[in-house]
């Protein structure tokens, strides 16, 4: 039989054992019937002593609803588990509830219901985003408002005054906007314009009313 997945070189396999270490349960005794199974030598550096149960797949354990039965069991074999397996070969009515649960947990890490259960990951996402937004606002406030050299020229009062003069002469937005707030007969702004003025802009209002 040719292996489907070629085992990597020895150095890489040895490091991957520590990272992909399965839930070891102590002794590494092997069941009498399971001393050899196909693929043991090739995959044992990565898997350990877990049994390969499926065929035609790469033996990697996953918990998911789309691939419910992976090709390897989850836990390695112990002495107690070996006895349970012998019991399993007999009548299943003799198994107690605890036996059945240990058998399940030996083959699978979590039940499918647990796969569907909410994980609470959204809290981390929102929290990280909030931290980043806070840092952004901090940076803007520290850097943006520090030096008038860095503010654009369109923010200065000279520019704004020239802009308002131009807009009023062109009579833009006569219905809802700036031209509707300007009284063209008397050449001054209507009283509602005072909302938008500060002490500095009031100078430009006077100049506009004087010019026209």
């Amino acid at each position: 039989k040719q292996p489907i997945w070629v085992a990597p070189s020895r150095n890489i396999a040895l490091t991957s054992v520590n990272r992909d270490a399965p839930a070891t349960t102590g002794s590494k005794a092997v069941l009498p019937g399971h001393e050899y199974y196909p693929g043991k030598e090739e995959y044992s550096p990565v898997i350990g002593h877990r049994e390969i149960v499926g065929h035609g797949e790469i033996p990697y354990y996953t918990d998911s609803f789309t691939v419910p039965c992976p090709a390897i069991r989850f836990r390695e074999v112990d002495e107690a588990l070996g006895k349970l397996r012998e019991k399993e070969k007999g009548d299943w009515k003799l198994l107690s509830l605890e036996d059945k649960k240990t058998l399940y947990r030996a083959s699978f890490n979590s039940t499918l219901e647990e796969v569907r259960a909410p994980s609470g990951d959204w809290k981390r996402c929102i929290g990280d985003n909030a931290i980043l937004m806070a840092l952004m606002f901090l940076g803007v406030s520290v850097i943006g408002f520090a030096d008038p050299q860095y503010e654009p020229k369109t923010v200065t009062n000279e520019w704004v005054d020239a802009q308002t003069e131009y807009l009023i002469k062109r009579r833009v937005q006569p219905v809802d906007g700036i031209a509707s707030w300007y009284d063209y007969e008397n050449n001054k702004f209507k009283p509602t314009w005072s909302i938008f003025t500060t002490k500095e802009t009031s100078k430009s209002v006077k100049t506009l009313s004087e010019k026209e």
Partner: protein
Amino acid sequence: INFVAADDGVPEPEIIIEVLKGCRNNNDYALATRFLEVVRLKGGNKMSETWPYIMQEIGPTMQELGISTLKEMGYEEPELWLENVDDM
């Protein structure tokens, strides 16, 4: 079983019975419970209609083989559910 799970529908009771007998022949009890969980969750939003029907159909075979129902095992709800610390 993975191919049955990939299909877009709940399997017929005859298929389920055959799968359970195959589990019995291979002496694998955990696989049978896993398959029953898959069958239950295949119903999706209509689990409350499909699952009792399926349990009616396969109840006798399950009692013959000695497989206990998911409710007895307590696997209809998450059993060992703890939020993963990395996900909080």
